[in-house]
C-alpha cells in the first residue's frame, strides 16, 4: 500500500492531454463568434469589391456601403416604419404569451377541455395565414378598439390578429407540455400535504413549465416578426400605419433597390436582436437550475 503522498500537497504536473483539451476548448469558444464574423466580413468585402469592379448599377445590386448610406439618408422615413413593425411584433407576441399561456393553463386544469380545444388550435396553426388574412381583413374592416390609453385602428387590429395567429401556437403547445411534465412523485408529495389546485399550479406546474415556455417564446418571437411582416404585405397598410414591409413594396414599385435592401437589413437586425434578447432572458431565468443552461463538466 502506498501512503507516501498522504499529508503532502500533490504537485503532479498537469498532463499534456488535459492542457491540449483546455486549449482546444478556449479556441472553440473564440471561434464560435470569430468565425461567422470573419465570413461576414469577407462576404461583404467581396460584395463591395465586385460591385465597384464590375460597375454594377445600384438599381441591380447596391454595394454594402451604398446600403448603409441609404439607411442614413432615409432614416427619417425608415424609423417610423420600423417602430410600426416593432409595435405589431411585440403586440402580437404579448397576445401570444397571454393567449397561448392562458389557454395552456386552462388545458392543464382539465384533460377534457384540452381534448376538446386542441384540434382547433392545430387547425388555426396549419392553415396558412396568407389564406386566412383576406377573411380577417373583411371581418375587421372599420372595427376599432378603444383601450382607454390608445385607440387601435382597423388596420392595426388586422395586423395584430394575423401576427398573433402565427405566433401563439408554439407558446400554447410548449407550455402545455411543460405544465404536464412536473415530476410525478412531486405531484404525490403535493397531494400528500393537501395542496390546493392553485398551490400545485403556482408552486409546481408553472415553475416546471418555465423552460418549455421559454423555448416556445423564443420560437414565437421570431414568428411574431414574420407574422407582422407577412400581415403587412397582405393587409397593405398605407400612410401613417405603414411598416417596413410597406416600405419594401413601395420601394420595389419605384425600383429603389438600395432602400429595399435597407429595409430588409432592418428587419433582419430586428429578428437577430429579438432572438438574442429572448435567449439571454432564458439563460438568466434558468442558469441556476435547468440542464439546458448549465455547462457540462466533463
Amino acid at each position, binding site marked *: 500500500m502506498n501512503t507516501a503522498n498522504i499529508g503532502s500537497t500533490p504537485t503532479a504536473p498537469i498532463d499534456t492531454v488535459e492542457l491540449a483539451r483546455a486549449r482546444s476548448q478556449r479556441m472553440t469558444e473564440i471561434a464560435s463568434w470569430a468565425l461567422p464574423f470573419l465570413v461576414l466580413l469577407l462576404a461583404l468585402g467581396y460584395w463591395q469589391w465586385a460591385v465597384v469592379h464590375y460597375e454594377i448599377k445600384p438599381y441591380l445590386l447596391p454595394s454594402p456601403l451604398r446600403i448603409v448610406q441609404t439607411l442614413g439618408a432615409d432614416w427619417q422615413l425608415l424609423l417610423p416604419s420600423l417602430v410600426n413593425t416593432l409595435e405589431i411584433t411585440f403586440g402580437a407576441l404579448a397576445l401570444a404569451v397571454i393567449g397561448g399561456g392562458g389557454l395552456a393553463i386552462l388545458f392543464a386544469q382539465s384533460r377534457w377541455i384540452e381534448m376538446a380545444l386542441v384540434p382547433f388550435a392545430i387547425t388555426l396553426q396549419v392553415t396558412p395565414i396568407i389564406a386566412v388574412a383576406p377573411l380577417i381583413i373583411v371581418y375587421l374592416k372599420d372595427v376599432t378598439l378603444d383601450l382607454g390609453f390608445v385607440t387601435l385602428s382597423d388596420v392595426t387590429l388586422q395586423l395584430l390578429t394575423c401576427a398573433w395567429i402565427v405566433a401563439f401556437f408554439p407558446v400554447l403547445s410548449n407550455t402545455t407540455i411543460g405544465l404536464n411534465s412536473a415530476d410525478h*412523485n412531486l405531484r*404525490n408529495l403535493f397531494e*400528500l*400535504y*393537501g395542496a390546493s389546485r392553485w398551490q400545485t399550479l403556482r*408552486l409546481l406546474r408553472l415553475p416546471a413549465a*418555465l423552460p418549455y415556455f421559454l423555448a416556445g417564446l423564443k420560437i414565437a418571437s421570431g414568428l411574431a416578426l414574420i407574422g407582422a411582416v407577412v400581415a403587412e404585405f397582405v393587409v397593405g397598410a398605407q400612410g401613417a400605419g405603414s411598416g417596413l414591409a410597406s416600405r419594401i413594396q413601395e420601394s420595389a414599385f419605384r425600383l429603389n433597390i438600395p432602400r429595399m435592401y435597407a429595409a430588409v437589413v432592418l428587419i433582419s437586425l430586428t429578428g437577430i436582436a429579438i432572438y438574442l434578447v429572448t435567449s439571454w432572458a432564458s439563460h438568466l431565468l434558468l442558469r*441556476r*437550475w435547468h440542464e439546458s443552461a448549465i455547462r457540462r463538466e466533463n
Partner: protein
Amino acid sequence: MKPIISLSDISKTFSNGTIALSRMSMDIGQGEFVSLLGPSGCGKSTVLRIIAGLGEPTTGIIDWPTSTYNAAGKPERDIGFVFQEPTLMPWATVYDNVRLPLRLKRVSQTAGHERIMDALAMVGLSKFATSYPRELSGGMKMRVSIARALVTRPKVLLMDEPFAALDEITRNKLNDDLLRLWQDQHWTVIFVTHSVYESVYLSSRIVVMAARPGRVVTDMAISAGYPRDDVFRTSDAYNEACRNASMALHEAMDVADHL
C-alpha cells in the same frame, strides 16, 4: 397501548386485475421501527402509499386509533414521506425545498423559519440552505428530502426504499444518522426496503412480504438494543438475524414461485 396505525384485511386490486395486496393485517405501535421487506412486486410500496393516503384500499380498513378524524371522516395523518428518489424541486433552493410542506399547510415563513433550520441542522445541511439541488451530491439530496419530511415534525415517518440508489458508504452513513434521529425524536418509522442487511441493522421489527398476491408471510422482532453501530454490524446477533430474515425472504419467494 393502542397502535398508532392499524391495518385490517387490506386488499388492493388494480384495474388491470393485478392483486397487489391480499388481506393484509398489521398493527404498528408507537415508536416502532418497522421494515417492510420483500421482493419487488410484493406490494410493500402499495401498503406505504395506502398508509400515506395516496390511494384507497379496495377492501379493508385502515385506522389511526390515536388520531383525530375530520368532518369528512378522514384521519389527520401526521406523516412525513421520503421517496426512493430525492424528488426535489430543481428550481428552488434547499431552504425552499424544505419549506414546501409548511408552505402547503399555509405556515408563514417567519413562523416556519426555526423549524426549517432545525430540520436542516438535523440532517447536517445548515450550511447549504441557499444551494440548489444540482449543486449537491446524491447523498446530500437525500438528506434534503429527509429534512423536508421532518419539517412538519411528524409522528410517523414513511420511507419508500429511500437509500436504494446510493452507494454503500453513503447508505451506511445515512442509516446511522436515521437511527440517531429516530432515537432522539421518538418517531414511528415504516421503512420499505429489499435489503435484508439494511432492514436488520435498522429495525426493531421486520415484516416480510411475499408477492403475487402481496401478503405478510413473517413478522419478526429484532431484539438487539439500540444504539446500534459497527460493533452490532459484526456481531453474532446481527448475523443470526440476517440469516433468519434471509430464510424468511427465500421462503416468501419460494411460495410465490410455486403458485
